[in-house]
């Protein structure tokens, strides 16, 4: 199949057929915010940060799940999109307890970076301040639900790459939360292989390695893509 040509923010860009719009946008050197997307994992289109305007389409579309097509005209950074992105990040900060000053991931957190990127400097919504537990029953990792943004990257990394499916989501609406096995303490999980991929995938300080200082904490979500690529290439 022939390559596709599309217009992104006024620039003509070529893309491989079957490629997502997000890949094409990045290829063109344009950065747009993403959160639930992680290279190497399947797409869910949940966070809505990567929404873009496509001419001729009534609704905004998530770039991470939209396939490129010939002649597509895309706008990735209109004032309207900027404002929506800021509001979405605001809603996230108001949802749980993202107190960066006392977080293990501060300075090394995608949510924090995103807030800077979209220019979210204060939260106008009421903080919901839920009282979520921290589970440190696992010998190597812990999860602080107060920092979770429900991106489900841990769920997918564990299921799709480690092939274990220790994680899943329980509850609905604002009460949704990630769980291990049958909603039991992580340390009692009989499926977890302690591979650490969920911790690599987690964008925030929700899943953290134990016994490592903030400065030493590896935050390397891109390693997920590396693992996937390595398997494909049989490195």
């Amino acid at each position, binding site marked *: 199949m022939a390559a596709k040509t599309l217009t992104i923010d006024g620039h003509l860009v070529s893309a491989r057929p079957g490629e997502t719009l997000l890949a094409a946008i990045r290829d063109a050197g344009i950065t747009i915010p993403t959160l639930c997307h992680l290279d190497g994992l399947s797409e*869910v*289109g*949940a*966070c*809505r940060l990567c*929404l873009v305007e496509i001419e001729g389409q009534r*609704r*905004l*579309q*998530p770039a991470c*799940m939209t396939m490129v097509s010939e002649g597509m005209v895309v706008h990735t950074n209109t004032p309207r999109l900027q404002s*929506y992105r800021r*509001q*979405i990040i605001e*809603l*996230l900060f*108001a*949802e749980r307890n993202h107190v960066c000053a006392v977080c293990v991931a501060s300075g090394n957190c995608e949510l924090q970076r995103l807030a800077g990127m979209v220019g979210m400097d204060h939260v*106008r*919504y*009421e903080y*919901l301040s839920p009282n979520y537990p921290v589970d440190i029953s696992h010998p190597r990792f812990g999860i602080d639900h107060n920092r979770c*943004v*429900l991106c489900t990257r841990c769920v997918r990394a564990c299921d799709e790459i480690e092939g274990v499916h220790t994680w*899943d*989501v329980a*509850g*609905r*609406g*604002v*009460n*949704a939360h990630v769980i291990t096995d049958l909603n039991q303490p992580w340390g009692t999980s009989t499926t977890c292989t302690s591979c650490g991929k969920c911790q690599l995938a987690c964008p925030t300080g929700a899943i953290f390695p134990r016994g490592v200082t903030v400065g030493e904490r590896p935050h390397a979500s891109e390693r997920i893509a590396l693992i996937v690529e390595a398997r494909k290439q049989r490195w």
Partner: protein
Amino acid sequence: MDLHELEAIGEREQAQRTRLRILCCAAAGCQASGALELKRRLETVLTAAGKLADIDVTPVGCMGLCGHGPLVRLEPSGEMFERVTPADAEEIVAALEGRPCTVTRCDRQHPFFARQFPIVLRHCGQINPERIEDYIAVGGYRTLYHVIHEMTPTEVIAAITRSGLRGRGGAGYPTGLKWATVAKSPGERKFVVCNADEGDPGAFMDRSILESDPHLVLEGMAIAAYAVGAEQGFIYVRGEYPLAIERLQKAIVQARRFGLLGAQIFESGFNFRIDIRVGAGAFVCGEETALIASIEGRRGQPRPRPPYPAESGLWGMPTLINNVETFANVTAIIEHGPEWFSSIGSNRSKGTKVFALTGKVRNTGLIEVPMGITLREIVEEIGGGTPDGTPVKAVQTGGPSGGCIPASLFDTPVDYESLAAVGSIMGSGGMVVMDEHTNMVDVARFYMEFCKDESCGKCIPCRVGTVQLFNMLTKLRNRQAHARDLDKIEELCDLMRETSLCGLGQSAPNPVLSTLHYFRHEYEELIGAEGDHGS
């Protein structure tokens, strides 16, 4: 089973009927007000009088005026009685035999009955939903025979397309187009799914259809399966509808026994089986992609579309998903022809719509009216206005995805486009009448609470936005809000509408936006006195 046998069953059924019959509504509404007890009492009275052989007591489906139940109808006179108690049993038998009776009669000339146009509900309250013979006696499954033996799938789809039928599940997508897409999409297997997850507060159209005439839906699904090339169907019905599930199960077993479902239907090469999947009480599972996930055994969460289920649905195969009422329209369209169907209704909305009329209205119940009828005719004539004569303030259509339409706009015709133009939607058919004593901020808050509890939690704008909106409306209700909070409410509504993943989040702001539009003063009156110079 062939046509001859089918007709023989119908004729035998007719011949076996007693001349005098008492039809008792045994749908959920009347059961709740004691219909089963009444039916037992009627049988006792008839047994005692030695008349049980001459007079049948037949349990039937919903007769429509559920708010006045239990209802009883006599045949052949057609007289109907309301609020019948077991103590009235003797008098009902007396009425059947032409003797005086003091039980309240329903006025059959009342607009509630006279203004209705039953297509979908044509057998409701006429037949025993638990007996397939009853359905066959009113002509059931003959259309399926006709379709299988005398029409090509393309002809069936063309008929549905020409009829102008649009989906009754809410969005009004052209049904013929959807069928054609599924038929043309490549796939090893195809599926037909009936969406019976009806979750809007106040809505009970689909439940009544399933409880009153389950075979009509099965026959519609089988015709659809033939048209699109599917061999497997699912009915996704919510777990809160035990009676509907029970009757569907019975209906499927009976149809299979008669060779009307299963392998080689009507001795043709067409196979179609239907299985029931019971929902676990999540409103969002009515959304088609979440419904698919749920049938597949995954968490009931929507996914972005495209691809639409018509291309990639159950297990990645082309899947036709239609609402209960959509399927219930199919046999009538084939039987009477698409031109007949498209002559009913308005310009772009053809046929009829079933509504569950509830709230501050004298005649609550299930109604079927031609599209294009005005809201005024429904509320004032059919519904009979409010019970105590208080002026009507607004009607809410479309449930948590819809809006409130003020009384000043009651001349709006009920069709997909007109309702959307006044800020509401047709929705699946819930219609709640509100009188002057209703506070519109409370209404908006009620629906937002519903959406907040029913959000699946997958996407951020809906998961957190519904809670924030609910909290802001609560603050307003408690007179703790500032004037600028109204702007914040509107801004958040816009965000949710434009960025949420599925229809739940996208339409959750509608009740707020429509009440803000038509009843802004009620919001402004609640702005706290100190509000304007708060922190």
